[in-house]
Every structure is written in structure tokens, then in C-alpha cells.
């Protein structure tokens, strides 16, 4: 009887201790993540402005910000830029990542470690360096890129103005293709060699091996890579911001959706509207993350 009580106490003390272990982390998460999130959602239902009377005397206006956003032609313009930016980034990052992964895993090319280190470099150096290194590289008169173009007898381009969208895509891809490479390398190297050896015994063709062995086994990593890339691109506007500043270009050439939300909130001072767009992005990201979790553990 006594030992049963002792055991019961012991188990409960253990569970209580473990529960207490979770409290500090959860508290920090709730204060600095959950509360700002809910606060943002609340602001998105009000007409709060960053300056003037409306900063304090704002009122609840329901879904009007959302209705306004969906009937706003600039919103759709910005969506179109976002689509172009995301699709181009997705394709280029994936292709470059695939190429890099194939070089690292192929038997023909030597120096895998060095290649892997080089391909990873842009991905691992801090993001603040990316933007300004490329700001200098793409400078119209003195920049390295235009100097190389001239040296190759090609016409220099106005990277900072006319080709701005492409410049931003190029930077984004430069900084991020290693993500696709990492996932694909680990997927490709995890395929057991025996599969290929056995199919060699049966005289299978290269195409057959690719279609029946490689592709099915890297299908999930492939989809996961695409999702990860898309998720990174849609809510990160650092590069677009670095090349745009605080007011959008008249034709919205760099105005990806996250930057549009920022400009609306902090340049046009329409905080409620900006938060509404932020929430729309958040819902997109949320759905994508849920899909990713569902597919999970590859």
C-alpha cells in the first residue's frame, strides 16, 4: 500500500517536472510570437493608420480591408509580379540546384568536396552581405557584371532600372539554389546502389532505371524542395526592398506581395490594409506548411 502511494507520487512528480520544463519555452513563444500574430490579425480588421488621429482612434471595420484588397488593381498587379518572381525563382533555383546536385553525386567530375563547399558558400554567409555585394556588382557604370559584358563585346544592361526584376530574381537564385541542392543530394545518395546493380544484371536501359528507380525514390524530396523554395520566396522581400527603397516604382516592377504589404503599412501609412495583406500571405504560407507537414518525414 505504502509503496503504491510512493510510486504514484513519484510518477506525478516526474510528470509535473516535465510539464514545468515546457512552460518557459511556451511562455516566450506565446509572448513574442502568438501575441504579435493575433495583434496583427486584429489590426487587419480595423482602419488603423500609422500617423494622425487614426493611430489611436481606430475603429473596427470588419472585412472591409480584405474586400478593398481583392478589388484593388494594384493588389492584383503586385500578385502578378509575385507570380512571375516566384515562378522564375522556383524554376531557376530548382534547375541550378539539380545541376549542382548532379555534379556532386556524379562519378565523372572530380573534387566533390570543393564543389560542395563552393556551391554552399552563398547560402551560408549572412543575408545582409548578399544584397550589397550585388548592389555593387550590378552598378551600371562601375559594376563588375557590366564590365564583364563589355569585355565580352555584349551591350551593358541597366540592371538597376530596366532589368530590375530580373536582377532581383538573379540574386534570389544565387543566394538560394543550394537549398534545392542539399535536399536533392541527400535524396540521390540515399538510393541503395543494389537497385541499380540488379537492374544492370537484367540489362535495363538508363532511361528505364531513371523512370523506375530514381524518379519514384526522389519524388517526395522533389516536391518538398519545390514547397520549401516557394515558401522562402513568398514572404521574404529583403532583396526587393534593397533595390526599391521606401516608395514603389510607378509600374510596380519590383513590388512582390510582401513588399506591397510593407509599403502599404509603412509608406502609405495604411496599417490595417497592410496587415490584411500580410494575413493573406500568412494564410498562403500556412496552407503550404500544412501540406509540407502532411507529406512530412521523407
Amino acid at each position, binding site marked *: 500500500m505504502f509503496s503504491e502511494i510512493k510510486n504514484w507520487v513519484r510518477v506525478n512528480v516526474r510528470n509535473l517536472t516535465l510539464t514545468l520544463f515546457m512552460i518557459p519555452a511556451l511562455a516566450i513563444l506565446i509572448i*513574442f*510570437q502568438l501575441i504579435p*500574430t493575433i495583434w496583427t490579425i486584429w489590426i487587419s480588421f480595423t482602419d488603423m493608420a500609422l500617423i494622425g488621429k487614426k493611430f489611436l482612434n481606430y475603429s473596427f471595420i470588419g472585412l472591409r480591408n480584405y474586400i478593398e484588397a481583392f478589388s484593388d488593381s494594384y493588389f492584383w498587379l503586385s500578385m502578378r509580379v509575385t507570380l512571375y518572381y516566384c515562378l522564375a525563382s522556383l524554376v531557376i533555383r530548382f534547375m541550378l540546384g539539380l545541376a549542382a546536385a548532379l555534379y556532386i553525386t556524379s562519378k*565523372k567530375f572530380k573534387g566533390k568536396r570543393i*564543389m560542395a563547399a563552393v556551391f554552399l558558400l552563398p547560402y*551560408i554567409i549572412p543575408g545582409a552581405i548578399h*544584397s*550589397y555585394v550585388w548592389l555593387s556588382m550590378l552598378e551600371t557604370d562601375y559594376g563588375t557584371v557590366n564590365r564583364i559584358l563589355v569585355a565580352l563585346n555584349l551591350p551593358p544592361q541597366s540592371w538597376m532600372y530596366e532589368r530590375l526584376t530580373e536582377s532581383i530574381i538573379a540574386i534570389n537564385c544565387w543566394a538560394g539554389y543550394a537549398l534545392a541542392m542539399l535536399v536533392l543530394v541527400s535524396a540521390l545518395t540515399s538510393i541503395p546502389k543494389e537497385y541499380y546493380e540488379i537492374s544492370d544484371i537484367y540489362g535495363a536501359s538508363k532511361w528505364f532505371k531513371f523512370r523506375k528507380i530514381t524518379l519514384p525514390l526522389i519524388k517526395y524530396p522533389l516536391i518538398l524542395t519545390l514547397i520549401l523554395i516557394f515558401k522562402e520566396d513568398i514572404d521574404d522581400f529583403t532583396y526587393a526592398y534593397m533595390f526599391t527603397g521606401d516608395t514603389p516604382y510607378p509600374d510596380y516592377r519590383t513590388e512582390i506581395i510582401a513588399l506591397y504589404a510593407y509599403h502599404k503599412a509603412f509608406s502609405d501609412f495604411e496599417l490595417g490594409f497592410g496587415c490584411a495583406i500580410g494575413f493573406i500571405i500568412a494564410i498562403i504560407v500556412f496552407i503550404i506548411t500544412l501540406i509540407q507537414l502532411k507529406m512530412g518525414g521523407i
Partner: protein
Amino acid sequence: MAKKILKTIAEPSFTAIGYVILFLLFAYTLTPLVWLFITAFNPRGGPYLEIPKEITLDNFIRVFTGERGTGGTGTAAHPIYMSRWIANSLFIGFATMLITVLLSAPAGYALSRLEFKGKDFLMTAILLIGFMPMTSKMLPLYRLGKILGLIDNLLGVAIVIASGTIPTQIWIIKGFFDHIPREIEEQAWICGCDYLATLFRVVLPAAGPGLAVVAFLSFLSGWGNFTVPLIMIYSEPLYPISLGLASIFVHNPGEIGLAIDYGSACALSVIYAIPPMVVYYIFREHLMKIRLGKIEIR
């Protein structure tokens, strides 16, 4: 016969194309970084890639002494606090690391050992708790910081960054604890260890590699973070390196003139890039494995 000729031509030309693409990929990846590296040692650095006539360490010395550039293509446009920026980044990095490890390790352990209803839900919720993009959380975070007295406070920045990285780190550390068999703990109890002694003498040493990974990853997210200091730090001597670099280059986006002290800015970013590179080099095996899991780390 024709097939044989085709094969003898096709194979080498494929290899040649392979090398050409590899070269282009290398050029794309490395040119900006080569510029960065060379300009850091060039006494007369500019936005263009050139082989310096002499190599100097003056740029690095200037970073630490805080003198204005006298050589180069011009003098710095505004006062330089570079050595203080480095100290600030170090402080934020280590504070983030400490907070993250102290909070996420117990939580990860508890989530690994406790069994309760809705555990999967809690794990997913932890991951999704801060799903709102940073753009729209800016104002709530700023006002929250103001209420809690965390504006212009490096510790406050570290706490907010930690709250952003804790979800991922909990997932990682839980994975490491899951791999430590419970039998080891039970044996320790049988041998008369009490609960806390078991934790400190048996569990923590066994989870050492996991703790190291979490520590280094959280250090990196504090070290490289840009958005959180952007929201919370306003006085220039308190800038971390990321904000400092941006403040040098982005005052006039699109029209960087020659009035930038490229030499010391590049020296600063070389210093800035070294810790992440070292960490990735030491932990590359671990990082590959983690990346294969459900979540992505940056």
C-alpha cells in the same frame, strides 16, 4: 556503325557541355564573393573587380580602430562604429544561443518523454505559432517591445530572435532525445540516482551533440539576423553588423556612388561571413541529416 560513331562523338561532347555548365555555375556563384574577398585586401577598393597592385591589411585594421578611410575611392559617408557593431553582433549571437538552449532543451526533453493527448497538435502548433510574415508583425512587435522596455536593447533583440528560432530547435532537440533509450534512465534510477541527477549525469551528456547543434544554429540566427534589429534598434552604436552594412549601402538605393569606403565595408563582411562558414564546416554531416527531416533551418 553509325551508332558507334555517334557514341564516340556524343560521349566526350556531353562531358564538354558538362564542364562548360559547371564553369558558368562556378562563375555565377563565385564572382561576387571573389570581389568581396579581393576588395577587402585592396587599398583602393571600388565596386568593380580588379586585381589589386598591392595587398594590405589596413581595411581590417580600420574596422577595429574605427578610423575613417583615407585611401580608397573616397571617405566614408557617415561615422563608422564597426568594432562596436561586431561586439553587438557577438553579444546578440551568444545571448540568443544561451536563451535558446536553456529554453528549448528542457522543452524538447519533456516533449520527448511525456505522453499526453494532443501532443502531435502541440508540436504542430509550436511550429506554426509564428507563421505571420515579419512584415506585418513589425508594428505589434515594436509596440510590445516598447511596453516591455526592449527597444534599443540588445538583450531584447536576442529574446525576440530566440522566440523565432525556438520552434525549430525544439523539433531538432526532441529528435535527439528520442534517440536516447529510456532504459538508460531507468537503469540510473534503479542504481539510486534521483530524478535530477539522472538528467544531469546521464541524459544531458548523451544529448551533447544535439545540444551543440542547437547552440550553433541559434548562435547563427542571432549573428545573421536582419529584420528583428531593424524593428528594435534605432541608435547607430547599438547596430549589429547586418544593420550596419545595410546603413552603409542602402541610404541611397540604386545610386551608390563612390563615396562608400568599400575596403573596410568588405573587410567587415569578410569578418561577418567567417563564423557561419566555420560552423557549417564543423557540422555539415549533422546539418544534412536534420535537413532531411520535416523542417528547414536557416
